[in-house]
């Protein structure tokens, strides 16, 4: 069987150009794509019934165009999105459209194709899809390594840890940058560069590492520019059933506390429910006890583990795809507990942010291994505290830093190129984080530079395998595979066309801390993401909205430019942002009387 059978057949060149691009994106070099299958199938659309279409499968995507005159349907599914492919019906199947393929996707949809029984057409399609959707099982490279797209900007340059720490004012006389993990010898799931207390020596760090799960020692994530309290992240201490203690770990946490002289307690947030933390003792883990850590207070944040989150999202899919559970929509939604989990994550992050912002104490955050719930909490708290992360590049840096470099196990949680769809390691932790960001952006419509589309494209390429950004579990693995040299960064795509992802209502406010309301009343299901495949929730005429937003963006840019000119022309002391007209308090005198 020749896989290259359909390699850009002459008659296909017209369509092929469109095939390989996301519309409106820049042409990519065609050399890396090849068409593997080109045939007529019936797409069993859950909303409009069976539709005859022509399917093209390349080594990157499955693309289907309706052949029926009254339907303009186009399916465009990167193979990386596929989590499972099943054959439906057998040789004896008689019913109409009962023989074909069932495809489960990671992005809240399923696809079903009916095929003719004769001519092995199903076997070919099944084999090719399996091969290219799950390249790891076939010793094939993930598509990102074949992608030769070129962009004007290099997204790999967005995050430079030294620069980011310098922006935070680090190192300073309490905090130093250490290269102890340069070759990932201290902790293989941490980045090479870490920020630790000035007073802790590298030997101290090694001894602390021995007492922390997977050697993930407490390191600095963020420092408050004024009160100098910090957010630290780590994994659980290895206390075990016997209640082991480690003097070096205890001393190390005290050193962290002492970087702020006036504060006599350090706050430790254990993201887990109390019982889970106790149960972890059985497997050698645990939490910081009062006896051992005199100058610290510990709080549990009751956030459940990856398995609970996976099951919860599965229930969400059950009630939204293909058909939305209509009769008791809100009760069904409640029974998935998805929003409740969102609420707990946000509540935890708010507590972290509040501690630090009020200068009450520095904060240490951990869960079990410190790469799931911990990443959610630190990154969300940082988003609340530091307006820089609410810009497009700032958010990219936040993801790159707190998630990618600190070893959120993207490969295991997403299962890039892996056929084991039931792997217990998979979990929508990053999606949950993005959902929390979306909830915040709903509550503060002018606080974020990016729009909803930005969050959705990040999630789309979390699965697509077109970019190297989310591949592998940690920095050491990425370095070994030379990901930055051999693949393109998602940020290259986004940053070369930023306007598309901008929020026209963004008003830059430095030093504003955002406290979202994490009450069930103020959280809502992200319909535009979770139910986006359902045509019935689509509003008509999206175009005028988008066009108006673009106009507003242009107006805004011009306005800001003019404002800057005026401020320059006026007087230097007026450039203080608090006096700019964007401050709402001046515009909104409080009205007391009721008329």
């Amino acid at each position, binding site marked *: 069987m020749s896989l290259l059978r359909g390699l850009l057949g002459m008659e296909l060149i017209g369509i092929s150009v469109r095939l390989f691009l996301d519309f409106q994106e820049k042409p990519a070099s065609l050399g890396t794509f090849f068409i593997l299958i080109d045939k007529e199938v019936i797409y069993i659309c859950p909303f409009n019934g069976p539709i005859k279409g022509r399917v093209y499968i390349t080594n990157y995507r499955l693309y289907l165009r309706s052949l029926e005159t009254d339907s303009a349907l186009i399916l465009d599914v990167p193979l990386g999105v596929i989590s499972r492919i099943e054959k439906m019906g057998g040789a004896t199947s008689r019913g109409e459209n009962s023989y074909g393929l069932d495809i489960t996707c990671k992005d809240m949809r399923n696809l079903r194709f009916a095929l003719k029984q004769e001519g092995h057409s199903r076997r070919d399609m099944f084999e090719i899809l399996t091969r290219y959707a799950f390249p790891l099982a076939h010793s094939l490279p993930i598509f990102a390594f074949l992608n030769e797209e070129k962009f004007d900007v290099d997204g790999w340059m967005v995050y430079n840890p030294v620069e980011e720490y310098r922006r935070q004012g680090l190192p300073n006389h309490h905090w130093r940058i250490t290269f102890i993990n340069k070759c990932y010898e201290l902790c293989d799931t941490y980045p090479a560069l870490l920020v630790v207390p000035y007073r802790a020596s590298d030997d101290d760090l090694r001894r602390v590492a021995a007492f922390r799960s997977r050697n993930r020692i407490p390191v600095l994530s963020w420092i408050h520019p004024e009160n100098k309290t910090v957010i630290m992240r780590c994994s659980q201490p290895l206390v075990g059933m016997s209640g082991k203690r480690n003097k070096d770990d205890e001393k190390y946490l005290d050193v962290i506390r002492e970087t702020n002289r006036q504060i006599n307690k350090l706050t430790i947030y254990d993201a887990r429910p109390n019982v889970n933390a106790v149960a972890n003792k059985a497997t050698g883990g645990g939490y910081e006890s009062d006896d051992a850590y005199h100058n610290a207070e510990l709080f549990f944040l009751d956030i459940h583990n990856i398995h609970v989150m996976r099951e919860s999202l599965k229930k969400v899919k059950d009630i939204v795809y293909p058909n939305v559970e209509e009769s008791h*929509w809100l009760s069904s939604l409640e029974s998935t507990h998805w929003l409740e989990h969102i609420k707990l994550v946000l509540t935890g992050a708010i507590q972290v942010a509040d501690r630090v912002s009020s200068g009450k104490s520095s904060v240490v955050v951990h869960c079990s291994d410190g790469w799931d719930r911990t990443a959610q909490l630190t990154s969300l708290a940082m988003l609340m505290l530091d307006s820089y992360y609410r810009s497009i590049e700032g958010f990219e840096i936040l993801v790159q830093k707190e998630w990618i470099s600190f070893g959120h196990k993207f490969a295991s949680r997403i299962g890039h190129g892996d056929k084991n769809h039931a792997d217990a390691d998979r979990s929508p932790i990053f999606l949950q984080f993005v959902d929390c960001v979306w909830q915040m952006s709903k509550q503060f419509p002018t606080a974020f530079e990016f729009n909803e589309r930005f969050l959705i494209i990040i999630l789309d390429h979390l699965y697509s395998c077109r970019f190297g950004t989310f591949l592998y579990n940690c920095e050491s693995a990425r370095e070994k595979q030379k990901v930055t040299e051999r693949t393109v960064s998602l940020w290259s795509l986004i940053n070369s066309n930023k306007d598309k992802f901008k929020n026209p*209502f963004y008003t830059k406010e430095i030093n504003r801390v955002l406290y979202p309301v994490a009450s069930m009343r103020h959280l809502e299901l992200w319909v535009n993401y979770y139910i986006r495949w359902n045509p019935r929730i689509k509003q008509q005429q999206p175009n005028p909205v988008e066009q108006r937003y673009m106009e507003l963006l242009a107006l805004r840019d011009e306005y800001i430019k003019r404002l800057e000119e005026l401020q320059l022309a006026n007087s230097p002391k007026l450039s203080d942002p608090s006096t700019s*007209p964007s401050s709402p308090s001046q515009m909104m005198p409080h009205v007391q009387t009721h008329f």
Partner: protein
Amino acid sequence: MEFSELIRTGQAQAELLRGPEMPPLRGTLCVTGHHLLLSPGPQATPDLWLLLLRSVDSIEKRVAGDAGTITLRCKDLRVLQLDIEGVEATLDIARSIEALSSLESVITSFPFFYRPKGLRLGEAWHFHPPERYYKRIARETWSSPLPVPQTRAWRLSEANEDFSLCPSYPRAVIVPRAVDDDALARSARFRQGGRFPVLSYYHAPRGTVLLRSSQPLTGRQKLRCAEDEELLRAVLAEARPGARGFIVDTRSAQAAKQARMTGGGTEAKAAYPGWKRLHRPLERGRPLQESFVRLMEACGDPEQSMDRWLSRLDGCRWLSHVKEALSTACLAAQGMEWEGACILVHGAEGTDSTLLVTSLAQLILDPLSRTMAGFQELIEREWIQAGHPFQLRCAHSAFSHTRPKHEAPIFLLFLDCVWQLGRQFPLSLEFGEGMLLALFDHSYASPFGTFLCNSEKERCLCEVRTRTHSLWSGLNQPKEQRKLRNPLYVPNPLAIWPSVEPQSLRLWQGLFLRWTHPPEPSEVAWEKVWQIATDQKTEGSQPTDSASEPQP
């Protein structure tokens, strides 16, 4: 009657708590004929706090030691707490508020005393929507590209000049030209409350019409009325040869049938050829009021017990009412736009769900009704002049302890549906959430006369037009515009078809959770959007001004 008889005490020392966001206010509390005043003394910055007594929905008092607490639940859904020094004073003030806030007399209500600066009496009462609207139809039918019989098919009838045909209709109504005033009078006798079918909206692009009425009085004997039948026949004949019509009955088929027992009923198929009946039951009256009450109980519940918020919200069924109202309006609009059919909407009295459906259908179809002026005209024409009994329906909002009699938040349901439209089509409405909130507040308690009384007839008797100010003149003042208008508005010539799936509808947080800890007060965000959208036009003069403001 003198107000002073109802005022038990002149004044007392009190502290006012206005929710978590606002600082408490201390000062001298004073009850007047129409207001509750709190004067914090000369040194305080906000020198006076004022509450219209009419806006108090319910009052609770508690005394302990030598002080008392009064909790006021307002019709705009705010909850206020007053801590008052002295037991006697507390009880007296509570009794005074109770008595004054429940006065039923219209002509002693505050609008008859309210004389704001900058407004003149009689202003903006010049809206005469039936006449104005008739002119628009005349214009549209004349310029219509459709065949000739269409043109001049409608006339403005003053048969109701003295409100004798129908006490809840305005003096002038639009009816088919082919039907004379005598026939109208007979049709009126065949309809409950005299509400014979009248034109509500002329859909120029398709030459079809939307009519409204009340139920026919067929009764047990299955009575018929030749003039009523002729009226509906004329509607079809004048629209287009062979045109079809749909009667959207806002009751279930069974309820409509049952209504015959009490003298009502519905149009018999044989009597109205060309018309087909569709039943779309909409809740009104008590079930709707109870839904509103339960929703406010859920919204006002303290955080602790809110784990089951979503199922509780589901249980209130408020969003189902929103969904049903929007779907029925879509049905009526689709009939006109897609089927080219004429639509008659009625339920029983034709003063509640009927108006909800006809006004929403117009917003969906008619771009002019989505402008600021057009929306005001729509409310004036389809709600106020069409005889929605505001006085009865809005006597209490969600907090009243007394058993609801005629109260029902049908107008609020309309505003909520409009809000959903605005959320789904953020650019297509010229007015914003602020406008809808203002209309809600004013429909329940207002210093303006616009929402007073139950019908034009009553408003005439009370001389509302000459003795009170119109809400529209209040709202159309330049200083109010920023709060009420949508800065993103771009005229949209198309119909706006909302998605009515449950997951596309939201709780209107800006209203139902307005006073309970909003994350970012919507006015603040609104203000920023305004700046971005409009400051451009001021040629940069504004930045200079406000930038120099903070200088000492």
